[in-house]
């Protein structure tokens, strides 16, 4: 599976002969190998020209742009010849059929709850809170079947996530506290880490979806148009517990991320460049972790699980085979 490259400094990204070159503001020049690049993540202020864009396009590399305080600002996606009218039509048909859309949305919610539960179960035994949450999540999971439409399913998902986030404070060491999940702006360290991590999951899902010719703008649980790539929101929900949350727990509890890695300005708590670097590094290592896949009979990376999820959805939409959401099985 191809790798992601993160660029944190400010400077200029350019095509240099047949490689990518980053010229930083302090005059340093770095090469990024392109042969096995899936995407470049641009976190700093980066200048580039159209020559670079065609180069990225020719090599099938995406550029995901991260702004300073809203973290994900957009992507420049390679064409890859991956557009398929038939695929988009089947996506839209499923969206337009309320029962079909509901079933897909329910699958995403079921999968998400299962994966949240897997994290809670992993940390279970530390406090009584977690036992209660496990039970609560089981009850909420049961209510998925009774939800008649997408709106209700959104409610079910929100209830589960709230119960799940309620366990964070007993899992995280004392200095770090989530309190409640807040988005804009993230008021504390944990919220800030969640926003950053989820943006990385989201961008990786954009890449996975684009590799299959699915249209990232046609979604089921989330309303299309909620964001440009709302299908990424659907898929990202399944993977946030596996990726964002576990990376967060590890880094905080091993003291690899401390309160020094944040800056607070006007009530907005943001990761410093060093903090984002630490998080991204652990995040990328997590994407490269592998697990034995029971059906494929080989080890696959976590990153490849995202691609498989897009395959499964596409197969469901075009071949009519049942869609089973990703559930952590190990």
């Amino acid at each position, binding site marked *: 599976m191809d790798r992601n490259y993160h660029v944190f400094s400010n400077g200029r990204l350019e095509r240099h002969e047949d490689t990518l070159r980053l010229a930083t503001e302090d005059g340093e020049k770095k090469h990024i190998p392109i042969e096995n690049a899936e995407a470049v993540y641009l976190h700093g202020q980066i200048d580039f020209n159209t020559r670079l864009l065609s180069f990225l396009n020719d090599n*099938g590399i995406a550029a995901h742009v991260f702004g300073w305080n809203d973290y994900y600002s957009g992507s420049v996606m390679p064409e890859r010849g*991956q557009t398929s009218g038939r695929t988009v039509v089947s996506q839209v048909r499923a969206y337009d059929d309320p029962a079909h859309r509901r079933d897909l949305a329910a699958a995403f919610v079921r999968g998400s709850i299962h994966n949240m539960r897997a994290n809670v179960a992993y940390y279970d035994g530390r406090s009584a809170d977690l036992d209660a949450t496990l039970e609560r999540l089981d009850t909420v999971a049961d209510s998925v079947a009774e939800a008649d439409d997408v709106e209700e399913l959104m409610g079910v998902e929100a209830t589960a996530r709230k119960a799940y986030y309620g366990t964070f404070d007993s899992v995280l060491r004392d200095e770090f506290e989530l309190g409640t999940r807040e988005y804009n702006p993230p008021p504390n360290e944990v919220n800030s880490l969640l926003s950053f991590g989820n943006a990385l999951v989201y961008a990786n899902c954009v890449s996975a979806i684009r590799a299959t010719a699915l249209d990232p703008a046609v979604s089921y649980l989330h309303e299309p148009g909620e964001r440009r790539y709302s299908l990424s929101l659907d898929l990202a929900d399944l993977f946030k517990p596996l990726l964002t949350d576990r990376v967060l727990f590890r880094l905080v509890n091993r003291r690899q991320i401390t309160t020094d890695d944040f800056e607070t300005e006007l009530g907005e708590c943001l990761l410093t460049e060093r903090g984002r670097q630490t998080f991204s590094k652990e995040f990328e290592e997590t994407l490269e972790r592998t697990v034995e896949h029971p059906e494929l009979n080989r080890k696959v990376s976590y990153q490849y699980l995202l691609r498989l999820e897009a395959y499964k959805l596409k197969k469901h939409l075009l*071949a009519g085979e049942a869609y089973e959401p990703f559930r952590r099985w190990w």
Partner: protein
Amino acid sequence: MSESIDPVDRLLATARGDAAADPFRVTGVMMQYYHACERELWFASRQLEIDRENPAVVRGTRVDETAYGGRESKQLGMIAIDLLEDGRVVEVKPSSKLVEPARMQLAYYLWYLDRVAGVQRDGVLAHPRERERETVELTDDLAERVEDAIRGIHDLVTEESPPPAEEKPFCEACAYHDFCWC
């Protein structure tokens, strides 16, 4: 209307250019897929594209390009055939597991040459790394099997959904492997 026409006649009408509005085509690869795995054929017929970087795809392309350097390739309507110097049609069999699909692909070429172009040729089934070659002749029996396969392909590609996955010895090397089994 088209449902009532025999797919073989429909194919011949397409080949003669009489069916511009409702063409039915069978390529050599489709004939091969049909005998290797019907599910694979269904996926391919829907242009369910897999990743370009998939190693199985890359491997398949390479065997074809390098196996017989001095061949002459001819495009003839819906098929592309490779001719040996003596005019025989050659088809490379990619592996011992896929002999029958390759043989049927070759048989289809011979059938197509005969029925569409009115040219009778023999075929050679060859493997780049094994010296032995098998000569294939279009007998009545083989022609009938080709026509049955054309009908089978027609039915399959007009199905709403693919036949279910069944483990095959070449699944591991199939371009659709992950798509199929995930």
